[in-house]
C-alpha cells in the first residue's frame, strides 16, 4: 500500500511538472490553437458554453489528465478496482494541485498588472487567462483541480475496463489469426514467397513516386525535394558512419563542394561560365569525391572522438573559406551565388515535378549502390571496421583502402545532393552549408537507424518532412526534436527502422522475412 501511495504521488508530481512546463513555455496556448484548427472550429463560435479556444484548451489539458489516469491504471495492473481508482484520484489531485497553484499565482499576478512576459516571453496575459478557463484566478484554479482529478479518474476507470476485458488483446489476436488465414491460402503464400512479390511492391512504390509529384502542388514538391536531398545525404553519411563507423561531423563540406561546383560553373556571375548542367553534375560529384579522398589522408590514424573533431573543423573551414573576403573573387563571398543554372533537356526546362523526379532518381541510384556495396565483401569489411578496427586488420582487411572508399562514396552522394540542392534553389551561399546540416543529417541517420536504408529514409522524413507538416509548431521545433531524440533513444535505441541482418545460413527457408526485402 505504501509503495502504491508513493508511486501515485510520484506520478502526480511528474505530470504536474510536465503540465507546468508546457504552460510556462506557452505551449498550452499553441496546442489549443492547433486543436481549434484541426476541429475546424471558428474562433467566434461557442461549444458547450465555452468559446471555441477555451474548449480546445479543455480538450488538451483533459487529454493530459486522462493520460495520467491511464498511466496509473497501467502501472497498478492486477490490483483491485478500488485501489486503481484511489491511486488515480491521488495522482489527479497532486497533478491538479500543482497546476491549480500555478494557475492561481500567475492569474493573480496577471490581475494585479504584473507583466510576466518580460521574464517568460511566452507567458502572455491571454495565455494566463486561457489557463484559467477565462475565469477568475480562484475559480479557474479550482476548475483545474476538479477537472484534472476527474479526468484521471475517468482515464483510470476506462483503462481498467479495457484491461480487464482485454479488448486490445482480443483485437490483436483476431487480426493475427486473420492474417495467418490469409497467408495460409496457398496462392497468396506462394505469391509472397516468390520474387514477384517484391517486384509488385516496388512497382507500387514507383507508381506512388510518379503520381504524388503530379498532384502535390509546388509547395509540397519543394518539401519532398528537400526531404529527398536529405535522404541522399543521409545515405552517404550512412555509409561513412553507419557502415564504416567513422564519425564524420563535417559532412556538409562535401555538400558545399557539390553546390559550389554547380553554382560557379553555371552562373553568369562571378565567373561568367554558363556551362551545361548535365556536364557540371558529374563534375560536382567528382570534386566532392576528390576532396573526400584528400580529407582521409590527415585523419587516417584517428578514431572516434578525434576523427569527429577534425571533421567538424574541416566542415567549418570550407564554410568560412566560402564566405571569406580573400576568396570573394572565387566564391562570391557572403552574398553567395545567384542564378545557378538548372537542368534543360532538349530545350525543355525542368519544372518542379520533373525536378522532383530527378531527385527521386538520384535517391534510387544511391539506394541501389548502397545495397550492392553493403551486401558484398566491401560492405562486410566496413562493418567489421566499425565493430573492431584492430581485428579487422588481422582479418586481412586493408583499413586505409576501405576508409578512403567509404569517405569517397559518402562524399560522392553528398556532392550529388549539393548539386541538386543548388540547382533547384538557383542559389547557394555560405549559410546553406552551416554545421546544422551535418548535425541534421547525422540525426536523421541515428534516429532512423544506423546502417539501415529504410531507416535513413524514415529519419529524413522525420527531421525534414515533419517540421513542414507541423508548421504551426515552428516555435517548438527544436524542443520537439530534442524531445523526439531523447524519447527515440530511450524507446528504440537502434532507430525507427533498425538495420536487419541478412540471413545466410537459411537463405531459402520458408517464412524467412529477412531475405525478401
Amino acid at each position, binding site marked *: 500500500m505504501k509503495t502504491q501511495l508513493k508511486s501515485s504521488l510520484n506520478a502526480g508530481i511528474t505530470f504536474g511538472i510536465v503540465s507546468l512546463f508546457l504552460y510556462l513555455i506557452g505551449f498550452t496556448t499553441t496546442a489549443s490553437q492547433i486543436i481549434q484548427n484541426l476541429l475546424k472550429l471558428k474562433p467566434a463560435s461557442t461549444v458547450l458554453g465555452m468559446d471555441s479556444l477555451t474548449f480546445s484548451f479543455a480538450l488538451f489539458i483533459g487529454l493530459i489528465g486522462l493520460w495520467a489516469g491511464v498511466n496509473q491504471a497501467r502501472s497498478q495492473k492486477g490490483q483491485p478496482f478500488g485501489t486503481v481508482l484511489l491511486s488515480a484520484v491521488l495522482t489527479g489531485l497532486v497533478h491538479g494541485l500543482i497546476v491549480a497553484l500555478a494557475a492561481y499565482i500567475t492569474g493573480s499576478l496577471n490581475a494585479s498588472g504584473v507583466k510576466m512576459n518580460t521574464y517568460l516571453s511566452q507567458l502572455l496575459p491571454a495565455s494566463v487567462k486561457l489557463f484559467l478557463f477565462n475565469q477568475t484566478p480562484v475559480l479557474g484554479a479550482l476548475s483545474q483541480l476538479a477537472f484534472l482529478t476527474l479526468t484521471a479518474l475517468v482515464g483510470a476507470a476506462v483503462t481498467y475496463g479495457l484491461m480487464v476485458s482485454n479488448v486490445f488483446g482480443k483485437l490483436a489476436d483476431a487480426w493475427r489469426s486473420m492474417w495467418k488465414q490469409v497467408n495460409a491460402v496457398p496462392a497468396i503464400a506462394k505469391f509472397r514467397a516468390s520474387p514477384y512479390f517484391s517486384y509488385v511492391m516496388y512497382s507500387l512504390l514507383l507508381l506512388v513516386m510518379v503520381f504524388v509529384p503530379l498532384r502535390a502542388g509546388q509547395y509540397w514538391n519543394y518539401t519532398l525535394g528537400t526531404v529527398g536531398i536529405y535522404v541522399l545525404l543521409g545515405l552517404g553519411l550512412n555509409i561513412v558512419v553507419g557502415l564504416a563507423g567513422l564519425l564524420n561531423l563535417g559532412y556538409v563540406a562535401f555538400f558545399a563542394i557539390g553546390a559550389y561546383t554547380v553554382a560557379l560553373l553555371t552562373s553568369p556571375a562571378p565567373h561568367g561560365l554558363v556551362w551545361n548542367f548535365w556536364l557540371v553534375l558529374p563534375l560536382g560529384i567528382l570534386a566532392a569525391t576528390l576532396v573526400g579522398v584528400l580529407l582521409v589522408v590527415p585523419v587516417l590514424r584517428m578514431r572516434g572522438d578525434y576523427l569527429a573533431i577534425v571533421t567538424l573543423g574541416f566542415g567549418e573551414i570550407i564554410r568560412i573559406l566560402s564566405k571569406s573576403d580573400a576568396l570573394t573573387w572565387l566564391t562570391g563571398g557572403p552574398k553567395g551565388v545567384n542564378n545557378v543554372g538548372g537542368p534543360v533537356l532538349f530545350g525543355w526546362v525542368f519544372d518542379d515535378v520533373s525536378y522532383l523526379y530527378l531527385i527521386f532518381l538520384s535517391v534510387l541510384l544511391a539506394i541501389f549502390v548502397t545495397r550492392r*556495396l553493403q551486401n558484398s565483401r*566491401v560492405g562486410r569489411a566496413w562493418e567489421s571496421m566499425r565493430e573492431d578496427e584492430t*581485428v*579487422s586488420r*588481422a*582479418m586481412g582487411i586493408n583499413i586505409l583502402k576501405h576508409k578512403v572508399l567509404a569517405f569517397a562514396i559518402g562524399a560522392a552522394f553528398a556532392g550529388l545532393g549539393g548539386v541538386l540542392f543548388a540547382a533547384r534553389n538557383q542559389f547557394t551561399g555560405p549559410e546553406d552549408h552551416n554545421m546544422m546540416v551535418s548535425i541534421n543529417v547525422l540525426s536523421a541517420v541515428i534516429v532512423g537507424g544506423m546502417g539501415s536504408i529504410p531507416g535513413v529514409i524514415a529519419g529524413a522524413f522525420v527531421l525534414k518532412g515533419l517540421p513542414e507538416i507541423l508548421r504551426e509548431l515552428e516555435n517548438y521545433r527544436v524542443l520537439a526534436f530534442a524531445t523526439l531524440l531523447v524519447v527515440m533513444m530511450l524507446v528504440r535505441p537502434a532507430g525507427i527502422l533498425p538495420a536487419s*541482418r541478412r540471413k*545466410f545460413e537459411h537463405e531459402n527457408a520458408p517464412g524467412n522475412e529477412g531475405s525478401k526485402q
Partner: protein
Amino acid sequence: MIVALETRGVVKQFGGLVAVNNVDLVVPENSIFSVIGPNGAGKTTFYNCITGFYTPEKGDVLFYGESLLGLSPDQITYHGIARTYQNIRLFSTMSAIENIMVGEHSRLNASWAEAIIRTPRMVKEEKAAVEEARRLLNFVGLAGLGDQAARNLPYGAQRRLEIARALASKPKLLLLDEPTAGMNPNETAEMVAFVHRLRDELGISILLIEHDMRMVMGVSDRIAVLDYGEKIAEGSPTEIQNNPRVIEAYLGKPMSEYEA
C-alpha cells in the same frame, strides 16, 4: 623437417621495459607448439610481433623462409597466418556467418566496382563464400546458429566461432591466444580434441599461448617457456614439467634457497 615459423632473436621494448628479449623459436610444419609463461611474461606481445601489430626492434620473423618484418597485419594474413584473441573479439553485431565471411576477406577478390555491377565472377565468388562459411560453421559445430548475432552466442560457441573466422582465411599457421580461458574441464577437453582435429584434418601448424597447464601438457608437441620476456626453457611436455627453472618461474624458489 619443414619449418613453418621461425623467430630469430626477437626483441620488443616499450620505453625501458623489455617485453620480449631475444626469443628464438622454431615451429615445425604440422605441429602444435605452445608458448607458456606467467602473467606478464610477454606472450601476447610476442604474438603481436609475429602478426605485424608490433615491429620488433631487433631480430627477424621468418614464415616458410620469408621475412615478415615490415609487413602490415593485413599483408601478413595474406601470407597465411591467422589468429584468435585472449579476450574474445568477434564482430559482435554481425551474424556468426558474416563473421566467418569477413574472415574470408583475404581469399576473395571482388572490388567495389564489381560489387556494384554484380559481375558474374563476383556473384559466383559470393556464392562460394557463403557455401564455405556454412561448411566452416559445421566444422566447428555451430550449424544452425549461423544467423544469430555473434554477441548472442554462448561463451564456448563464441570461442569456436572465433576459430572458424580465423580458419576462413585458409591459414597455414594458426595462432591461438588462450583458447580455453574461462572454460570448465569438460569444455577444455573438447577444445584439446578440437585443436588436434585442426592439425590432423586441415594440416595446419598451431602456435598456442596457454595458461592451463593440463591443456598445454595434453595438447602440445613442443613447449617454450617465457619469463620476463626471455625464453627460459624449451622442450617436450615431460622435459618442461621437470625443468627446475620453469618450476621456479611459476612457483618461486624453494624456501631452502632463500634461507641459504
